[in-house]
């Protein structure tokens, strides 16, 4: 056991920190819910890519830097601490790219990987549907073979970055007669195809973050099937495995957020309040414990081990820590919590407001806490399914 970072890792952290300080836009970029905002975010991602920070963890043969999990985590942590703009490339970079590397044909890899890296293609994830969220295999969007193409009809929902993305990887039902998991295909769909319509959905925090995506007689070449027809469930499980293996919330971010609770307490003159201090002490302790928990995970990943269902432990930890931290902030703010203008004591009331409300989604997206607990109970603790 040696929990210190190597000199090389420390040097990398210093390099990243210096670069981010010099380049992260000082003014917050306009929201991704507008065309202008989306393009501004794309331009930022392209700048990151040119500097070699696009997809550190991708193998060199695919244009990445071949960085190990620890270096990647260092980058993510520095990015989170400085609060860089939201990464609209996240679904392509972390889910579609790695899925293609495993399940894609040589042509598919050639066609898409480098464009993911350069942020020329922004991907979204079309898994959830109005009637299929937690129960993903209940999806109904249909794809019917027609010569060299599939014709897709149906609807996806809660599609992050879906309004302006270029491509979507979607699960579609190709065999309605087969058992639920056996009739699903994993399909890459060009969002500019005729018959695709993305309607922004306004989130609770007031921003148009995600979309509903409608498919009406959308023609998709069969060459865009990833893996085999009717075997899309296996591909999707690999994709979700990538989502689960990566410690999805970088440590460091929570320490910063709890420290900000401290400055709000100070601004309100409540920093000597024993109750406030008790809450801050508990949350900060949990934030550091989360950091050390993720170091344990990183050690395993660095050795090439998979995390498997234990990844759900990490998801529950970070999503509930996020929820609890911002809940404490809202309570601390009291009547200032509802104020969006500059009368509030926090340095940036709008930002705090939006982060509070977004924290309320953390226990829903990427698999709800209930689903994570089912996974932990059944697959980690071995409790009976029925």
């Amino acid at each position, binding site marked *: 056991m*040696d*929990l210190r970072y190597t000199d090389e890792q420390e040097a990398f952290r210093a390099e990243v920190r210096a670069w981010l300080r010099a380049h992260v836009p000082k003014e917050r970029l306009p929201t991704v819910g507008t065309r202008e905002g989306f393009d501004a975010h794309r331009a930022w991602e392209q700048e990151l890519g040119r500097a070699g920070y696009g997809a550190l963890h991708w193998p060199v043969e695919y244009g990445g830097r071949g960085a190990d999990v620890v270096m990647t985590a260092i980058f993510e942590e520095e990015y989170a601490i400085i609060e860089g703009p939201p990464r609209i490339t996240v679904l392509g970079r972390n889910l579609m790219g790695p899925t293609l590397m495993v399940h894609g044909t040589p042509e598919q890899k050639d066609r898409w990987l480098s464009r993911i890296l350069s942020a020329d293609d922004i991907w979204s994830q079309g898994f959830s549907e109005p009637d299929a969220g937690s129960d993903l295999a209940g999806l109904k969007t249909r794809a019917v073979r027609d010569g060299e193409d599939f014709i897709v009809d149906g609807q996806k929902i809660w599609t992050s970055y879906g309004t302006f993305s270029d491509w979507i990887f979607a699960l579609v039902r190709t065999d309605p007669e087969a058992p639920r998991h056996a009739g699903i295909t994993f399909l890459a769909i060009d969002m500019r195809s005729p018959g695709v319509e993305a309607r922004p959905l306004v989130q609770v925090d007031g921003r148009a973050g995600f979309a509903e995506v409608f498919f009406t007689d959308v023609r998709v070449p069969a060459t865009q099937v990833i893996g085999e027809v009717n075997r899309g469930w296996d591909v999707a499980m690999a994709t979700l495995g990538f989502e689960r293996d990566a410690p999805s919330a970088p440590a460091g971010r929570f320490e910063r957020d709890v*420290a900000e609770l401290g*400055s709000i307490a100070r601004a309100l003159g409540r920093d000597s309040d024993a109750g406030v201090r008790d809450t801050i002490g508990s949350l900060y302790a949990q934030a550091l414990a989360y950091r050390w928990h993720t*170091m344990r995970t990183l050690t395993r990943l660095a050795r090439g081990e998979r995390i498997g269902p234990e990844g759900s432990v990490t998801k529950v930890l970070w999503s509930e820590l996020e929820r609890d931290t911002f809940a404490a902030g809202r309570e601390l703010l009291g009547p200032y919590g509802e104020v969006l203008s500059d009368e509030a004591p926090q340095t940036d009331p709008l930002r705090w407001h939006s982060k509070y409300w977004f924290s309320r989604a953390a226990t829903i997206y990427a698999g709800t806490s209930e689903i994570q*607990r*089912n996974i932990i109970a059944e697959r*980690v*603790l071995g*409790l009976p399914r029925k």
Partner: protein
Amino acid sequence: MDFDFSPEQLAVRDLARELFEKESPPSRLRELWSGAERDRSVWKALGQAGLLEITDPVDLVLVLEEAGRAALPEPIAETLAIAAPVLAEAGSDWVPRVASGEAIVAVQLGGAPFVVDAGDADLLLLERDGELHALPHDAFTATPVQSDDKARRLYAVNAHTGSETRIAGDAGVALDRGAAAVAAVLNGISMRMLEMTLEHVKTREQFGKPVGSFQAVKHKLASAHVRVESARAAAWYAAFAIGAGLPDRSLAASVAKVVAAEAEAIANAEALQCHGGIGFTWEHDLHMWMKRGKALEASFGTAAEHRARVAAHVLSEQADA
């Protein structure tokens, strides 16, 4: 960065687990609960197995987890994790006697009103006015105090300290070591309570199926598991930080104690809840772990005291910034 234990460290853990199961099974705990006299046989067995020679906090942390899993009624955290390094740093001639298992050390820090195992101790390490003192057996008196956990022998201590009993060392560092060590023991207690509960809910049937198949039950145990796993990482980190003398060792020790006590409180509550009525009987073993857990929550600083230390760190760091 490598956050894992070596095969040797895991082998020592396995050795400790086997030994504790053999020397200190629940039946032995029950004898102590019924007033059986303590003897040195268990301590001797630990010594013969080489466990009392462990000086590195990381080597020790898994042994402490095992001590918790077994609810071991021996002052292993006090003697090995706290006293041994203090005595070694002070250059005391007690060091070889501790390592050989000849000497048991009781520890009183942070104004704790009672001292565990003081009556059986050959040496008492105590803090007075922020200074450390070491007193051999005949220099203090220990009066037994009735306690909730009957296998945890508590004493009120009467000791005269003076310049002749003083030893070099930092009482704050000793308290950090105590908090970090007790955190590891607490995690072992939590693990054992969850293991017992998992076994129970897999076999206990109601409504024609194992109660462990009910989601309400699953979620309670999953929640406890999540918190215990992060608490273990925190205790391991604290052990590493103390061993390596890192600047954040004091913070890490408080964090470890906070999250271990919080996780244990959850595991303690859910273990009883999921056992139902049987868990509330004296006959069932669970209560021996529940009581040890509750006692240790308050040992070497309550969770609230350590939360206050962590908060002071957060708030003062900002003042400096």
